[in-house]
């Protein structure tokens, strides 16, 4: 958590569309200079939340403060925020430079040359130097996005809002832009609030992530905590891949003992129960990369079990196996790096599986 006062502060924010309850009591503080992500499936309210901050949607109740000032009744054009739209919203009748300079019209303190220099700098910053005279409609998707970024950043907003800015780009370009956005954010030091449904993107780019489901924040944490210590099955399932196994838990004084279907008995500490220690029947989660296949009599570093290869997906660098464990209905997924000399198992083969009880996470049933 940041110690400086928050730039964006939401208190018990609700939003109704007619009878539809889109935002259900959002409490959120976003610190200065943070790269913050709102992550969730479509329809979870993340875009609504972003648009509320921008001023395109009114709050039904609750308060929104931007750098300490109440934004109630302040229209979008008077807020210290700027937005990169999902469609980029590049003005088709203007050139690249005119698009970038759009928001500078009201800056009467700058003369023509000063404005032109600012535009030049902004284009330079997003790697579009020399594109100023181009017509906006003659740009590729990636270039349009850079224009949208330059157009927003030139106004030096307190908060830059990004509405799924990378979803329209192809995979290679998306990965490149993820790095560039991160670099740009560090460079300008402005608070970025990113809306995305792509959990990988959120993990790569963010300082902190708020995972949203059905108008509520399910968990707010940094990427590592979110991935390693999800507080609910829903979050665990949404972030990366998580195997869920039925189990039964008996609490002890410092650690609990769980009997897990397909894996056997294991000890579990309170830190492995982010949502509090369940009792009795529960669900145990385990990530694919924390399990591995043991080849040719290799000894297990920790615990060992076995199962049949049910299905496999070869990704080149990795192979994902679906392994049917004894006594478990749904096969578990595990991933193996395709190291030199390591063979890829075939369907139906029996595999020895190594796992570690430190990787387990317990959820209520």
């Amino acid at each position: 958590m940041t110690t400086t006062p928050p730039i964006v502060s939401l208190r018990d924010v609700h939003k109704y569309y007619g009878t539809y309850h889109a935002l259900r009591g959002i409490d959120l503080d976003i610190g200065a200079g943070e790269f913050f992500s709102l992550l969730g499936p479509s329809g979870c309210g993340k875009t609504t939340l972003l648009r509320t901050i921008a001023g395109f949607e009114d709050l039904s109740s609750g308060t929104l403060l931007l750098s300490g000032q109440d934004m109630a009744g302040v229209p979008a054009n008077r807020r210290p925020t700027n937005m990169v739209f999902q469609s980029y919203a590049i003005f088709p009748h203007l050139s690249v430079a005119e698009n970038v300079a759009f928001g500078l019209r009201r800056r009467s303190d700058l003369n023509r040359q000063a404005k032109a220099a600012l535009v030049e700098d902004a284009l330079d910053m997003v790697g579009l130097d020399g594109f100023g005279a181009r017509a906006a409609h003659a740009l590729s998707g990636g270039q349009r996005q850079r224009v949208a970024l330059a157009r927003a950043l030139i106004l030096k907003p307190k908060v830059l809002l990004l509405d799924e800015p990378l979803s329209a780009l192809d995979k290679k370009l998306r990965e490149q832009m993820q790095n560039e956005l991160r670099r740009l954010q560090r460079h300008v030091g402005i608070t970025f609030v990113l809306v995305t449904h792509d959990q990988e993107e959120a993990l790569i780019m963010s300082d902190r992530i708020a995972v949203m489901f059905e108008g509520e924040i399910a968990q707010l944490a940094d990427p590592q905590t979110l991935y390693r210590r999800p507080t609910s099955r829903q979050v665990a399932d949404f972030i990366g891949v998580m195997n869920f196994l039925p189990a039964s838990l008996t609490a002890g004084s410092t650690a609990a003992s769980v009997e897990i279907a397909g894996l056997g008995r294991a000890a579990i500490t309170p830190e492995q129960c982010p949502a509090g220690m369940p009792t009795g029947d529960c669900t145990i989660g385990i990530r694919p990369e924390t399990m591995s296949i043991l080849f040719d009599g290799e000894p297990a570093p920790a615990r060992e079990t076995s199962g049949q290869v049910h299905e496999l997906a070869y990704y080149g660098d990795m192979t994902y196996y679906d392994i049917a464990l004894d006594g478990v209905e749904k096969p578990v997924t595990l991933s193996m790096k395709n190291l030199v000399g390591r063979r890829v198992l075939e369907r139906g083969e029996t595999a020895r599986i190594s796992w570690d009880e430190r990787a387990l996470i317990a959820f209520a049933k």
Partner: protein
Amino acid sequence: MKLKGFGTSDTARGLTLIAPPALFALLLLAVPLVAIFAFSFWSQDFLTIDYTPTLKNYREALSEPLYGQLILRSVLIAGAVTLTTVVLAFPIAYFVSFHVPANRKSLWIFMITIPFWTSYLIRVFLWKVILGYNGVLNSTLIGVGIIDEPLTFILYNANAVVITLAHAFAPFAILPIFVSLEKIDRSLLEASRDLGENHVMTFLRVTLPLAVPGVVAATLIVFIPTIGDYVTPRLVGGPGGLMIANMIQTQFLKLNNAPMGATLAVIAMAIVTVIALVFIFLNRRWLKARS
């Protein structure tokens, strides 16, 4: 190699397909146009037509002040009609596009076209009833005591022609403007607001420039047919509201001088073409100068 007979190659098949409409267009558009051109270079010799090519008609048309006056009046009336129609149509199109809920838009557009359900002629007659000396407008205004005597400047003159035509052509202006407004990505308006512009400046900097193609289309669609209209000036224009089309009709039917009528028609066509081209050219220049 196969023999490329008729109906086997794509080109031939395409030509076969478009032949009927092409023939139709040729007979109904090209032939009359060529005939008008031809007539304008012939001359009337009492009851017969002298087929010797001559520029006599053009010389007469350009030297006779009445014709020039009628053409000028036609251009002015059509210009006034176009200005009125487009200026009034824009707010309507804007309202339907931006403030009517999406599921009601087709209903609104449908209602805007309702005047078309009655014949053009009947609509013109109705305006006569409304604008007449003892008409609806005058009786109402006298009734509420706003005026003491009936207004006379609203019927049988150019004003009446402008009012009637502006009403008749309103849907032609509303529809293209509506279409161009509908095509504007609404996130552009949000982007403008986000970048610090209020509603008025957003309209001036984003909505209006993007609606220009619709306004240009509306202007041409209204201007071109109104300049050649002859029913409305004939019925509500009185002597001071007559236009060039009325003279063309008089030449053809009353004065039995088809060549002179054809000549006036060609001149009117040429003027419309020149004005339309200049308008489009200025527009391109304006758009280019902005980007």
